[in-house]
């Protein structure tokens, strides 16, 4: 049965069904309704986790680092400046190979102060070693959490589920929620690897110091494991679809099969782009859109495969590497290098919550077919 749910509420309900042992969060701005709802479940007696209120996002991240190190399923959520304050711990969680799951309600970062949606927060920590998934709809955001716990615990790499702030977190959509029993059957209890967690009966030290002799090898391990986690994610998406009857791949293609001009983006804007593509196809244009659902590890082969017929690519980025271009655009250019002579334009749009409309996208569709500007700002 479908319920009309607010994005944050859907995620909170789903996270509760995933049965984390510890949830920690900083309870005020820049927080979401996700942890507010989770704390409500706790006070209502419908949750079994320990809810630890932290005095900052830095502390919240540190608390889930600690609880995960003690071998239990741990969850937190954050947004914008909160994620930036967590940055140091975000890197450490990945470096320590702790399977924490975190939702990031993607929002702009200061300055100027802005609370609306873009993806600059998450994209800024893209090199931290987390698996990064981006949701298009509330349904996908909720569903990705089940997969996130599974993937994190299998690979021992933390997973960040990204959902656009406000556009998804504060918006109501029909969402199909599974029963708690179904989720329990699909996502078993978390059992950490023996001797790899803090245990008073078998003491270990985690997060220790590494000299130049070991450091680069440990980083290379994480590099290799993050790259090969792609196989695990792919398998998980397939088994999720089999069990729950919905979902997709790392990369999803929508539109004309032989499209010459293709949009590439992540997150909720995909919905608007799909509508635009429909309109363009109705007018006889050969347009399509590629949704990148898994940003880290970056699915290079899958992207090259779906874009090999494209002549022009418009990469719609809700973030920018200042002094360079849109971040997803850079990734696309790196992926396509040597594979195709496609013309890729970086389109930076929607920063700080500026609407990206179908009208804008129709203009982009025409503009990217003329080779010229490397970076196009929709402002």
């Amino acid at each position, binding site marked *: 049965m479908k319920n009309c749910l607010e994005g944050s509420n859907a995620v909170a309900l789903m996270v509760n069904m995933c049965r984390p042992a510890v949830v920690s969060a900083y309870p005020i701005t820049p927080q979401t309704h996700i942890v507010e709802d989770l704390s409500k479940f706790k006070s209502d007696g419908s949750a079994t986790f320990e809810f630890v209120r932290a005095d900052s996002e830095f502390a919240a991240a540190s608390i889930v680092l600690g609880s995960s190190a003690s071998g239990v399923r741990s969850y937190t959520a954050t947004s914008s400046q909160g994620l930036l304050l967590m940055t140091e711990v975000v890197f450490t969680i990945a470096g320590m190979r702790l399977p924490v799951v975190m939702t990031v309600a993607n929002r702009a970062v200061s300055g100027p102060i802005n609370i609306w949606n873009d993806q600059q927060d998450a994209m800024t920590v893209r090199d931290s070693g987390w698996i990064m998934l981006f949701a298009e709809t509330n349904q996908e955001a909720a569903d990705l959490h089940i997969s996130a716990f599974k993937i994190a615990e299998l690979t*021992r790499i933390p997973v960040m589920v990204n959902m656009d702030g406000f556009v998804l977190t504060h918006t109501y959509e029909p969402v199909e929620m599974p029963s708690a029993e179904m989720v329990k059957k699909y996502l078993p209890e978390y059992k950490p690897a023996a001797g*790899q967690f803090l245990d008073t009966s078998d*003491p*270990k*030290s985690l*997060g220790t110091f590494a000299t130049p002799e070991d450091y680069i*090898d*440990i980083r290379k391990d994480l590099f290799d494991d993050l790259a090969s986690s792609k196989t695990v994610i792919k398998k998980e998406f397939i088994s999720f679809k089999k069990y729950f009857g919905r979902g997709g791949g790392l990369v999803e293609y929508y539109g004309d099969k032989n499209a010459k001009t293709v949009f590439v983006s992540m997150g909720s804007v995909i919905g608007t782009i799909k509508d635009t593509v429909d309109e363009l196809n109705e007018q006889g244009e050969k347009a399509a859109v590629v949704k990148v659902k898994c940003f880290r590890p970056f699915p290079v082969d899958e992207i090259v495969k779906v874009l090999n017929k494209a002549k022009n690519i418009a990469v719609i980025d809700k973030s920018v590497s200042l002094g360079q271009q849109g971040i997803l655009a850079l990734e696309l250019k790196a992926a396509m290098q040597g594979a195709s002579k496609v013309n890729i334009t970086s389109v930076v749009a929607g920063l700080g919550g500026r609407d990206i409309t179908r009208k804008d996208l129709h203009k982009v569709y025409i503009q990217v077919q003329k080779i010229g500007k490397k970076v196009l700002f929709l402002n």
Partner: protein
Amino acid sequence: MKKNLAVEPGSTKKVKTGDWRIFVPIIDHDKCIACGTCARVCPEGCVFAVGDQALQGKVFYEKDLDYCKGCGICAEECPVKCIKMELEEK
């Protein structure tokens, strides 16, 4: 994941960190007044009384070079300046 990131406890004792050192403290036992300041200020806790009393009735202080990083705080704080930091040839 090839490297095991979980280590047995007590690694700070097992892993000798003294090889970071560039300067090594040399204690002049004749000048030493056995006040124990060096032992109290050592951030590594690797300066200690050896227990044997010298002829003058003083307690000798020695350092554990396995962990001494040569920070020189003992030499700086010594009230009679009987500790010298010397460049260590390795």
